[in-house]
């Protein structure tokens, strides 16, 4: 199984074995980090971080991962200071940037942009989010986090909670969890359900058991892992309705008491009102651990695909 030069565009491009290999490599990276071992796998290599829309975690996480591998980072996060603002096409931007670097990381508001970049570039391209489509490295780090914290993925009851329709994270994650044989409970307000075609694909491909509900309490009751995402107000025409839904889908400490003793809560962050702040201090809140696991996972991915 060779990853050299492979693009990381969609979780759908990966087999279970390939993801397992990345998780194994991430484990090794985490051990090196824990022991403060200086790594030089990417010495003399450059990663280009092309962020056509804002990001804190993903951009810094890739930069940190590359530097911990001994490499260096170039890039932009504000297109107003680039030729894109002058009307340069994505194709031309990629053709230019690939001459400056060894690996490209791209986040772009249009779906399919990372796939297009990969078609153009001879250097490996890693998708850091293309519109509402995919965010594969987030999915892999989520799988790694669950495996680390729960010891397994297979057979776990995972509740995906919030806006499952528009978020790229949940679509990729549902696919990844199904591949690893987790049981899925999809908890979302009416109208923000996981797209029918995603559910159909998962069920047909992986024979996954899926429960769908708009009742948050019943959705959380049997969950081993509660994965929460934001409900964005702008998805609603009526502000009052938006606030009502946000409120009813807010995880509170009272709700948490009714969940399993060993349940954990994850979130791709940034979070706003969907988790009561006091929950951060509970032992169930694991989203900041999840952020940390992004580093070894992205180190593993960069190291595996480097030319």
């Amino acid at each position: 199984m060779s990853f050299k030069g492979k693009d990381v565009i969609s979780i759908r491009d990966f087999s279970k074995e390939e993801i397992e290999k990345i998780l194994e490599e991430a484990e090794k990276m985490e051990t090196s980090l824990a022991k403060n071992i200086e790594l030089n796998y990417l010495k003399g290599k450059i990663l280009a971080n092309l962020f056509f829309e804002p990001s804190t975690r993903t951009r810094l996480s890739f930069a940190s991962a590359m530097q911990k591998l001994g490499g260096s980072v170039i890039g932009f996060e504000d297109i107003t200071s680039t030729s894109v603002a002058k009307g340069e096409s994505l194709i031309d931007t990629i053709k230019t940037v690939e001459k400056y670097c060894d690996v490209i990381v791209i986040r772009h508001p249009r779906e399919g942009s990372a796939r297009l970049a990969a078609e153009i570039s001879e250097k490996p391209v890693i998708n850091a989010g293309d519109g509402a489509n995919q965010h594969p490295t987030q999915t892999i780090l989520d799988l790694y986090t669950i495996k680390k914290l729960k010891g397994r993925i297979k057979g776990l009851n995972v509740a995906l909670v919030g806006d499952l329709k528009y978020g790229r994270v949940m679509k990729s994650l549902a696919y990844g969890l199904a591949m690893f044989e987790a049981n899925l409970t999809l908890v979302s307000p009416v109208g923000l359900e996981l797209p029918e075609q995603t559910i159909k694909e998962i069920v047909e491909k992986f024979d996954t058991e899926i429960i769908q509900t708009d009742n948050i309490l019943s959705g959380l009751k049997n969950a081993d892992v509660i994965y929460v995402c934001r409900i964005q107000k702008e998805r609603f025409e009526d502000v009052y309705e938006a606030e009502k839904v946000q409120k009813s889908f807010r995880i509170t400490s009272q709700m948490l008491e009714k969940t399993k003793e060993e349940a954990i809560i994850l979130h791709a962050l940034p979070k706003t009102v969907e988790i009561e702040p006091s929950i951060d201090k509970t032992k169930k809140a694991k989203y900041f651990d999840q952020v940390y696991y992004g580093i070894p996972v992205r180190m593993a991915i960069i190291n595996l695909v480097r030319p």
Partner: protein
Amino acid sequence: MSEKELLVRKIENGTVIDHIPAGFGLKVASLLNLEKTHSTSVILMNVESKKLGKKDVVKVENRELTEKEVSKIALIAPSATLNIIRDWEVVEKKQISLPEILEEVIKCPNKNCITNYEEINSKFIVEEKEPLKLRCYFCERVFTREEVTS
């Protein structure tokens, strides 16, 4: 079917697209931009058919279709057959079928797909032929026949 029954004369050279489901003849004609070409063409509607009950037929003089055009027809009229006419004779008769991959044939209906903003050919993977399920190679969305032909 005799010439008298078809109401129009035979063509010397060109293409007859037969077995188009009734009601889709105009769509096929528009898809081939027949109104903008110099070829003489005829659209026959609601012709009696043993296979389909009623069918539409499109005849185009002095023109043979490209692969891309055939794929476009296959999207809206998968039951259609093509008859290539040379010197008044049918020299080739073939059932239209969709290729595994459709390139350049249609635009991606997803308005936020990058193919609608960059100079790049669209590309769809034919995941299922009946009912039609097309996945955009770039944005990964899945579309039905109605979504790509409306």
